[in-house]
């Protein structure tokens, strides 16, 4: 039997023992051999996953491609190239997930692409949602329902009556309240199992790099070009995937920007002058369209966290609600891009405030 190279997922409690890596590539023919080799590389971790008789202790659950190994052939289960092994210690309650979590997320866990390990990945993931508005509402809501453990919300605005045609995080009684506050209350009411961090105030060139690096994935629901370019640049500089979308009237565009594989500036190198492109306030937007696209952003975010399927990277999805057509076009990194090109001219965040004529991003949006 040939040795295969497999990916071992290291959960948070063990990560410090494995050089703070989330995934480690290890060779082996069986699950046991893979773990032995892992223990050789990281003796501290070895002490945790083997007892003194080189057996896997009962409080350590081992999964091969999301299946607990005792449902397979135990530690002797053969592994194949590209398989994923996860070593999960029992946590409070003695299980990977609490009984309540198993029930709450059962429709996810039952799918082999998610499973208990995938659900743990969601629970330990950190996603930043920029804007608690039309796109940010459905996106953050579905992420919270999916059990994405930490959801950050950036917004500076208060709920306006004209927001309620589409922004499902906010209700009639919330008019006049800060959107971040209303967002947190709604998300926790739907799922108290998640942690909601609010970043009250506009995202700026000063604070973007204090916020974005703390998250795994960023969802862009910005309503103005100032913030859209800022989020694009900051995600590229911080090396974070950006699930981007923008909508107007009946049209939507969305894609996933993976650092180094193209960015918003590859499409549109610089922001338009003030007033050159209509905003949602000026041109209008179909409320339900924000639901379609914000939900798609949640889908792509969950795919990235789980590492499943084909992420919408290098493809721009165009949705025309009036014709009912989805189209995708291929998008590549532009070597002449001012941010991610071969000779970039943007190396740090510039002060975008007032860039598009708005003293505070979004006030005119």
């Amino acid at each position, binding site marked *: 039997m040939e040795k295969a190279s497999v990916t071992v997922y290291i959960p948070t409690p063990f990560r410090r023992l494995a050089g703070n890596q989330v995934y480690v590539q290890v060779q082996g023919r069986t699950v046991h051999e893979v773990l032995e080799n892992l223990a050789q590389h990281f003796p501290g971790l070895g002490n945790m996953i083997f007892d003194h008789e080189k057996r896997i202790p009962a409080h350590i659950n081992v999964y091969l491609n999301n299946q607990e190994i005792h449902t397979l052939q135990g530690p002797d289960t053969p592994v194949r190239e590209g398989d994923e092994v996860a070593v999960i210690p029992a946590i409070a309650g003695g299980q990977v997930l609490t009984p309540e979590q198993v029930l709450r997320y059962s429709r996810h866990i039952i799918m082999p692409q998610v499973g208990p390990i995938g659900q743990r990945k969601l629970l330990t993931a950190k996603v930043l949602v920029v804007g608690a508005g039309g796109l940010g509402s459905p996106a953050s809501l579905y992420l919270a329902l999916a059990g994405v453990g930490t959801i950050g919300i950036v917004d500076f605005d208060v709920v306006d009556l004209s927001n309620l045609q589409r922004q499902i995080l906010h209700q009639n009684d919330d008019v006049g309240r800060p*959107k971040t506050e209303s967002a947190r209350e709604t998300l926790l009411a739907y799922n108290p199992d998640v942690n909601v961090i609010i970043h009250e105030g506009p995202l700026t060139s000063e604070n973007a790099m204090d916020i974005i690096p703390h998250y795994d994935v960023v969802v862009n629901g910005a309503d103005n070009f100032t913030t859209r370019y800022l989020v694009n640049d900051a995600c590229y500089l911080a090396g974070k995937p950006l699930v981007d979308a923008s909508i*107007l009237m009946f049209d939507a565009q969305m894609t996933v920007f993976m650092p180094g594989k193209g960015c918003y500036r590859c499409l549109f190198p610089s922001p338009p002058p003030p007033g050159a*492109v209509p905003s*949602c306030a000026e041109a209008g937007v179909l409320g339900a369209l924000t639901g379609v696209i914000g939900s798609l952003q949640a889908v792509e975010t969950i795919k990235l966290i789980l590492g499943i399927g084909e992420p919408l990277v290098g493809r721009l999805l165009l949705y025309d609600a009036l*014709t009912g057509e989805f189209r995708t*076009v291929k998008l*590549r990194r*532009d070597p002449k891009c001012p941010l991610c090109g071969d000779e970039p001219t943007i190396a740090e965040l510039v002060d975008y405030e007032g860039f598009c004529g708005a003293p505070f991003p979004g006030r005119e*949006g």
Partner: protein
Amino acid sequence: MKVIVNGQERELEGPMPISQFVATLPVPQRHVAVARNGDVVPRYLWDEVLIQEGDVLEVVRMVGGGAF
């Protein structure tokens, strides 16, 4: 010659570079991205890439909104 622009048939005078085609649009050049037959054409190639009979073009307009 016939081309498809955003799903609709359109008549163009003949083969032309993307830059010439974009100049006929009612929006400034910097506010659009153009995909030809499924691939976004980087701006620096707009003078070189020719639009041909039967091409399928997608003109993507810059949109700022996330509808806060």
